[in-house]
């Protein structure tokens, strides 16, 4: 195998030489750091590892998840393990899916100046400004769907001149959508009723009393839905 290719990166301003194949996260560990903050799932789901970086000589400030972004030559890296954001407290059973709810819980979304910095910052490439616009209009279904892949890393909020906490707005919209807007699953309601009435007890009891050999037979010969 060929020699490992190395690149120079700058972690909070200090230079380190690391293998080019690493992610920002594994490069930090290669450089000698041990994470406590800023590392959660290590796999792009939890949003713990929000990072801003700039490539030497380029003017654009870039954003990414440290666990999902490969290092590059001349990368200046700062992680943002915590950023003060706003979470409005509410009772999901007391709110209703109308425009009023956003106005009272997250009024700052109406101060959006349309700069689109949030969308540009999103490592998940979500249409962040667009989903805020849906929320402003009270179209929670659209907001919920457009924000669905959000990992709440908060990079949008870091860049927002209006101080909006976008992930929380999306969260509220998704809960409203899931609870109030999406159609009811009638088969689910029915099955829960049956269970509460104890209609499945007997069958389960019977299985619990069945000797293992017989259970094995039931299992090995059960029909499988196509």
């Amino acid at each position, binding site marked *: 195998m060929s020699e490992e290719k190395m690149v120079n990166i700058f972690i909070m301003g200090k230079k380190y030489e690391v293998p080019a194949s690493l992610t920002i996260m594994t490069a930090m560990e290669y450089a000698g750091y041990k994470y406590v*903050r800023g590392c*959660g*799932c*290590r796999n792009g789901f939890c949003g713990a590892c929000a990072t801003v970086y700039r490539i030497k000589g380029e003017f654009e400030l870039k954003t990414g998840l440290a666990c999902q972004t490969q290092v590059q030559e001349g990368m200046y890296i700062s992680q943002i393990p915590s950023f003060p954001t706003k979470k409005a407290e509410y009772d999901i059973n007391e709110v209703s899916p109308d425009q009023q709810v956003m106005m009272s819980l997250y009024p700052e979304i109406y101060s959006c100046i349309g700069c689109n910095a949030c969308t540009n910052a999103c490592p998940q490439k979500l249409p962040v400004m667009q989903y805020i616009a849906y929320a402003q209009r009270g179209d929670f279904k659209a907001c919920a769907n457009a924000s669905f*892949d959000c990992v709440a890393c908060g990079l949008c909020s870091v860049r927002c001149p209006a101080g909006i906490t976008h992930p929380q707005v999306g969260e509220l919209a998704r809960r409203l959508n*899931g609870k109030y807007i999406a159609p009811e699953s009638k088969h689910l309601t029915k099955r829960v009723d049956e269970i509460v009435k104890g209609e499945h007890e007997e069958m389960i009891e019977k299985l619990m009393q069945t000797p293992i050999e017989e259970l094995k037979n039931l*299992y090995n010969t059960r029909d499988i839905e196509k």
Partner: protein
Amino acid sequence: MLTNEMLESIKKVEATRDERMHAELRKMTAEEKEAILNAFHPDYKDEGFEVLQVGPNKGEKVPTELCHLLQGTSRVLGKDIDLENPDYDTDVLIIGGGGAGSSAAIEADEAGCKVMLVTKLRIGDANTMMAEGGIQAADKENDSPAQHYIDAMGGGHFCNKPELLRKLVCDAPIAIKWLNELGVMFDKEEDGTMVTTHGGGTSRKRMHACKDYSGAEIMRTLRDEVWNRKIPVIDYTAAIELIKDDKGAVAGAVLQNMETGELYVARAKTVIIATGGAGRLHYQGFPTSNHYGATADGLVLAYRAGAPLLYADTIQYHPTGVAYPSQIFGALVTEKVRSLGALLVNIDGVAFMNPLETRDVTASTIIRECKERGKGVPTPDGGYGVWLDTPMIERLHGEGTIEKRIPAMLRMYLEYGIDMRKQPILVYPTLHYQNGGIKIEANGMSDVENLFVAGEAVGGIHGRNRLMGNSLLDVIVFGRNAGKNAAAKAKTIDTVGKLTLSHVDSFEKELEGAGLAGGELSPKLLPDYTRK
């Protein structure tokens, strides 16, 4: 960059795709499965295990790394800890901010108890957040809790504890409804019918999903609810030892600030361990799909306090971890990719098995294909993998299916220039799930008074092998159950007795007696990936 060998092999995969499109792949017989597990499953490799010398499971084998931690040195030994003046006082103390801990917190709060949740990283930095595939529940007309019971029993090699499994399958639809009413956005048809698919080992399509962010959608909803209820959440704080009262019941925990190292004492009437799995112990050198904090801490705490473990020797290796590219080595490729129709294919383009066998059988068969038959595709890191033929999905279900149903997978690979809609991906088993754990009764309590356990830290629900989608389910069902029962129990306790850590001293004496004193510090808290 794919190697030339990979590119050559992809051509063979493409060449056989047409004829594989509607191939019926035979399922193995019970005997064939048994043989392949014996020969190739990591759980059957003696070298990976050690026998416990002390504690409730003395004489039983567990993975070596876990054995060293269970018999390790307590972090409180020699520390000056003031048990007389607790820093926190609560009714129900919950350790772990994943799905089980959060569900428990919501129910204990609902019951009117004073609740506190401590977690090692942030609430939601947890395996629950990473679950992609989905959650099982028998809520369709052609399905029933009984059918679900049989599937799980078979998957678990008939070792599941019947009373726990009964609760799991009967409460499953109730759990889905509860989540839905909290606002979780399940995939539904226009008329509200849940979109459900098969998972390995299911006989009915009962896998409910929220795209391939199922766990994330559930976890963030639970987290939002915990916050809305103003339940105190103490982040970056690990429980490092349980505290007991003078009657031997559990009555709190010693906590450690992960950043400053400061120790605190939390007194509680009941305690719930919801600390999740052990992937970051890297048993037998396997990579893992688990989050950073999955180090089996809860098992260590409970074991020292005298709670027996069940099936701690059974580990789930997920058949499809990423084998290539190296940046995401070990990360999970959700089973849904196979549910949607992608076949497992070897270096010659041959589909070598039915991809919907149970996980243990599938993982073992992939290992055999690579190790014994030499039909794996070599990777630049010296490992190997087999193809998961993802382009089949769009051929079967139409263009756009991958983006719609498994967007997280698509995104993960696109970061490295691999478009799974057009080319197959390379996979190999990854350390995924702790099938066993702390033994509980149906009320969620361990063998130690006032110590409840929920989630992946529990052993017995899934027998010796868990089916996909039953874990997210147990997290909700048994998380809520533990929350309710721990709250009810707390209400029967007026005042907590005198706090003590004497069980830690006795355990240490036992270790000394066995010549095992001075082992590594445990619980482990975090893996160490810093280059030395």
